[in-house]
């Protein structure tokens, strides 16, 4: 490639249509290609309509409104990017600058053709590497690049995927050099990320700049995903309804948001390794209704983690036996296992000759000049020209960060040279390419445009009729205007790419690009997800019950008798530790305390995140954060509990108004109810068995802890007494806190569940609600030995009911979730 060609650009703008104020702050770096301005400093014609729109009125106000709206939409849509050990917390809001990068149809056409050719080449190359290895025999590929690569999967040698299709989603990073040409920087063949973010970016920018996108007739980007979906769902055997899943490493992965987003966009369920099982060379999804055959796996998991039986045995994320199913051609992996071997900069220099050998074609997309140091002449060149080069590792598992030769001095330089000489094949040198620059809206300080280096990621997918390139993609801008390394992990931002229509063609229909987003069928929901929904329901209520009990206890401080009894209850139930003083602060070390339960609740929520709306998810996070803060600050516990109860009430609201009411939701509800029944029956039994069961102050306290004081007052004229309290809390079929109410509701939900899942064999509570006649109630609250006896036996009945609730819970998990209760282990002799 050519050397950077510094051209002097005038910093004052002369374009007549531009108001000096709006672009005056845009100071391009003359050594870079500028996307917006030409050599003379004039706005390039294809940018003019957009710039006009953004600067027509008060440009500052437009920028401020645009940025605000973007930020709000990102939060509303819950777009995040997880960064391990990020000071901003695990979930970082996605960074998007709404000013798009504009590309002309003519230049795009060339890039598109280049990318499609490259996708074809890579499929042919993989077919050779995992097949006859002719290129190795002919010396066109160094053995080091294959046999030395950690992602060359030995057990995959000889496997030919269905349709000879290795790549289903392929991405490449490109940048524009000062000469105005686009150069390829890297191929992404493993499990390319970012396409989901690109679609999300478009959805947001479309709402921020609705007029501009219509006026410019920007090409739509969602079409390729419909084609991908169609292809992924085309691998069923005759008469089968094909099922595809997205395999994710789980919620702690940095791009988990995208996995969930693609799941919605493609209408295929999101599954973790433990949701899938291989029996007889066939992959199955464990669902609530049983095992369902999986035909296609769109994987977002690196290939060496996919099967602990034959690949990395330390992987807990994969599916044991998967390779057997792949070999038997019973499942399609997208991308095929083994494609990661091409993720190395070392390949770039060899691809032109490989293209001529395999395709008989010249590679149309040039890649940045690259030297693999495993060849003696290349190493000599690299050592002689270190200052002009970037040194990178050949293999992805090497501990070596890319370094710019010109930044290396003294000792550091010596060390790098030593490494290069010791293991030359493990290093690659690349020409340093100055990225082009494009305008962004300054996010802070003075509003207006700033120039920032940009690179782009393009995507190609395998459709039924061949390779299709997404007309658009993900533009990434550097966090620092002076650097040439763009990385989302290092805090850079993103942009939408607008490909303008071809002037020679009829315009493609433009409008909102929001696709309907096919629905995942309910019966394809993995049972792990449902199990976590169930426990999410249980923990929400458990936290509420415990918080209420604690708060009621704190309220009783002034009455020593009640206080002692209440503290004893709390201790017996484990809500406060044996030596804990509830009045001091909330104890976050007690494993049975409310703080620990809130943590469990949040964990369950993180596992079912795809099923929660963004605001639901935010409410959970907010609740946990606040509680943690108040614990850390040793705040007055009553205030903290009040706050917590308020948040929990909101969660209950979300659970009923904000979720799809399918089987998963129904089990969440069963979880809530079983928890309430178990806790309430247990607490009432405690009370009945105690010596103060009939004392008014204690009954009052209990009513408060049950959140039933008000309803008691409206229902009964008498002051709080044991008899009417039991009438209300046990027998009432309309009071939602009464045992009878919960009992019936659980039975109803289980019946509906059994019907909708087509399950026979009734599951239910083994204990009935104790029959309470008026006479019995009278007897229970009298004095004397007989009454004590009656109370004890009632307490026994309630304890049995509480135990039965626990039993039912176990049986539910056996029936619906048990095939996942076990962990796979790897053993080798």
């Amino acid at each position: 490639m050519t050397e950077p060609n510094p051209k002097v650009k005038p910093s004052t703008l002369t374009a007549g249509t531009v108001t000096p104020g709006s672009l005056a702050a845009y100071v391009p770096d003359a050594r870079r290609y500028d996307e917006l301005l030409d050599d003379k400093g004039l706005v390039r014609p294809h940018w003019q309509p957009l710039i006009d729109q953004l600067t027509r009125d008060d440009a500052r106000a437009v920028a401020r409104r645009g940025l605000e709206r973007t930020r709000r939409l990102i939060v509303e849509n819950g777009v995040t990017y997880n960064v391990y050990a990020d000071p901003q917390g695990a979930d970082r809001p996605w960074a998007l600058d709404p000013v798009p990068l504009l590309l002309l149809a003519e230049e795009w056409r060339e890039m598109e053709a280049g990318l499609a050719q490259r996708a074809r080449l890579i499929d042919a190359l993989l077919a050779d590497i995992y097949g006859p290895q002719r290129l190795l025999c002919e010396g066109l590929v160094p053995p080091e690049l294959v046999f030395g690569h950690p992602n060359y999967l030995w057990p995959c040698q000889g496997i030919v995927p269905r349709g000879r299709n290795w790549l289903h989603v392929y991405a490449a990073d490109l940048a524009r050099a000062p000469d105005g040409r686009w150069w390829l920087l890297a191929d992404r063949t493993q499990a390319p990320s970012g396409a989901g973010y690109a679609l999300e970016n478009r959805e947001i920018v479309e709402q921020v700049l609705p007029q501009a996108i219509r006026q410019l007739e920007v090409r739509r980007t969602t079409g390729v995903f419909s084609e991908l979906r169609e292809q992924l769902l085309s691998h069923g055997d005759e008469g089968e309804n094909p099922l595809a899943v997205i395999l994710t490493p789980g919620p702690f992965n940095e791009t988990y948001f995208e996995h969930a987003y693609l799941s919605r966009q493609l209408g295929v369920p999101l599954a973790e390794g433990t949701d899938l099982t291989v029996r007889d060379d066939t992959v199955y999804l464990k669902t609530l209704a049983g095992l369902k055959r999986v035909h296609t796996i769109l994987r977002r998991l690196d290939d060496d983690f996919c099967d602990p039986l034959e690949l990395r045995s330390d992987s807990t994320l994969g599916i044991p036996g998967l390779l057997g199913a792949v070999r038997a051609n019973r499942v399609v992996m997208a991308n095929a296992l083994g494609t990661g071997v091409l993720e190395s900069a070392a390949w770039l220099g060899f691809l032109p000759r490989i293209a001529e050998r395999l395709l008989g074609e010249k590679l149309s997309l040039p890649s940045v000049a690259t030297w693999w140091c495993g060849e003696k002449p290349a190493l000599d060149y690299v050592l002689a020209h270190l200052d002009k080069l970037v040194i990178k590792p050949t293999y992805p598992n090497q501990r070596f960060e890319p370094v710019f030769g010109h930044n290396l001095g003294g000792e550091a330089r010596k060390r790098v040279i030593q490494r290069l000489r010791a293991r030359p094949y493990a290093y690659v040198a690349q020409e340093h390419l100055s990225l082009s620059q494009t305008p962004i809206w300054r996010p802070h300080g003075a509003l207006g445009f700033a120039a920032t280096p940009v690179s782009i990621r393009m995507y190609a997918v395998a459709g039924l009729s061949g390779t299709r390139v997404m007309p658009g993609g993900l533009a990434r801008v550097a966090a620092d205007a002076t650097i040439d390394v763009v990385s989302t992990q290092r805090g850079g931002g993103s942009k939408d790419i607008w490909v303008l229509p071809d002037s020679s063609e009829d315009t493609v229909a433009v409008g909102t690009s929001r696709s309907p987003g096919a629905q995942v069928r309910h019966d394809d929901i993995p049972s792990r997800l449902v199990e976590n929904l169930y426990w999410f329901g249980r923990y929400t209520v458990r936290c509420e019950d415990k918080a209420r009990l604690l708060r009621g206890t704190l309220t009783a401080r002034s009455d020593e008798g009640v206080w002692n009894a209440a503290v004893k209850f709390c201790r017996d139930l484990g809500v406060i530790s044996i030596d804990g003083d509830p009045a001091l602060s909330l104890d976050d070390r007690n494993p049975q305390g409310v703080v620990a339960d809130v943590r469990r609740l949040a964990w369950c929520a993180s596992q079912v995140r795809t099923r929660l709306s963004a605001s639901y998810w935010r409410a959970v996070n907010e609740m946990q954060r606040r509680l943690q803060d108040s614990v850390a600050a040793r705040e007055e516990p009553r205030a903290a509990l009040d706050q917590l109860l308020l948040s929990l009430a909101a969660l209950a609201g979300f659970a009923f108004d904000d979720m799809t009411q399918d089987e998963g939701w129904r089990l969440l509800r069963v979880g809530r109810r079983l928890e309430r029944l178990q806790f309430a029956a247990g607490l009432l039994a405690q009370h009945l068995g105690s010596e103060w069961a009939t004392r008014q102050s204690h009954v009052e306290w209990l009513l408060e802890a049950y959140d039933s004081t008000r309803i008691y007052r409206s229902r009964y004229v008498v002051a709080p007494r044991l008899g009417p309290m039991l009438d209300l809390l046990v027998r009432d079929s309309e009071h939602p806190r009464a045992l009878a109410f919960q009992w019936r509701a659980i039975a109803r939900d289980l019946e509906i569940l059994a019907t909708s899942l087509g399950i026979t064999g009734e599951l239910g509570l083994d204990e009935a609600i104790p029959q309470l006649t008026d006479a019995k109630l009278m007897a229970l609250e009298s004095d004397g030995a007989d009454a004590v006896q009656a109370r004890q036996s009632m307490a026994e009945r309630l304890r049995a009911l509480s135990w039965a609730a626990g039993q039912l819970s176990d049986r539910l998990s056996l029936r619906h979730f048990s095939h996942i209760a076990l962990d796979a282990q790897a053993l080798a002799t």
Partner: protein
Amino acid sequence: MRGSVRYRIRHETTYAYRNDVVHSHQLLHLVPRPTAYQQCQEHVINVTPAFYRKRNEIDTFGNLVTRVEFDHPHRRLEVATDMEVEVHPRPAVDAADSFSWERAAAELNYRNSDPARESLEACRFRHESPYVRIKRQFNEYAAECFTKGRPVLACAEELMRKLHKDFRYAPGETTISTPLMEVLKNRRGVCQDFSHLMIACLRARGLAARYVSGYIRQVPASPDALVGWGASHAWVAVYAPPFGWFELDPTNGMFVGTDHISVAWGRDFGDVSPLRGIILGGGSHRLSVGVKVEVIPS
């Protein structure tokens, strides 16, 4: 053939699990592969409990592999192989006639032209593998064996003797997950560690080396009994042009001949472990392995 030895071998592996294993996939490398120096005349693998499916295949290194799948709850897995193998003596070579180690390594380097078939095959065993990371320390440890211009076989032999001398055979003190760097530091281990270490020292010099698993002749009563019987054994093959692959046993400090019966080879233990499996359930487990190697009198 003159000097050939016939063996009867029994290899038993038993897993006793604390809880039910509900599903299990196992990969067995238990049948000796045919080579120029040995033939397996007879073998039978007995597996209990009843398996759901069993299949024989050949892996990417040419080894015989058996896949077994179990889908019924069980608390005990027994795999017993009985085989008869005939092992022939190998021709003697003069180490001095092998290429210098520098040349042997350089011949494997990529030179922008089509490589010899044997070299390309050797290149498969020249790089880091999961159990054999290549570190500077291995080069330092083995430096005295690789003097300038020395024939590669002489280097390998000295390296084998050095390992045999420096390291103590200490069963139970390492596991398969003990890092090689730790083995190097503590100077003790079992045949897997000795072999991995020797492979690492050879590969660190750019040479090709592979891991061979198998059995060793059993002479329990003898005072000079070979180490490694009673269990499966492992050793090393080094690519030594112009002779090709040459096998050495660093655990016993000897060349491989008719005392060794090879089963499989790969880049390291991970490619050829006798039993590799993933189970669902099971909890903790107890493992017992027994190997009996008898010479069949001719």
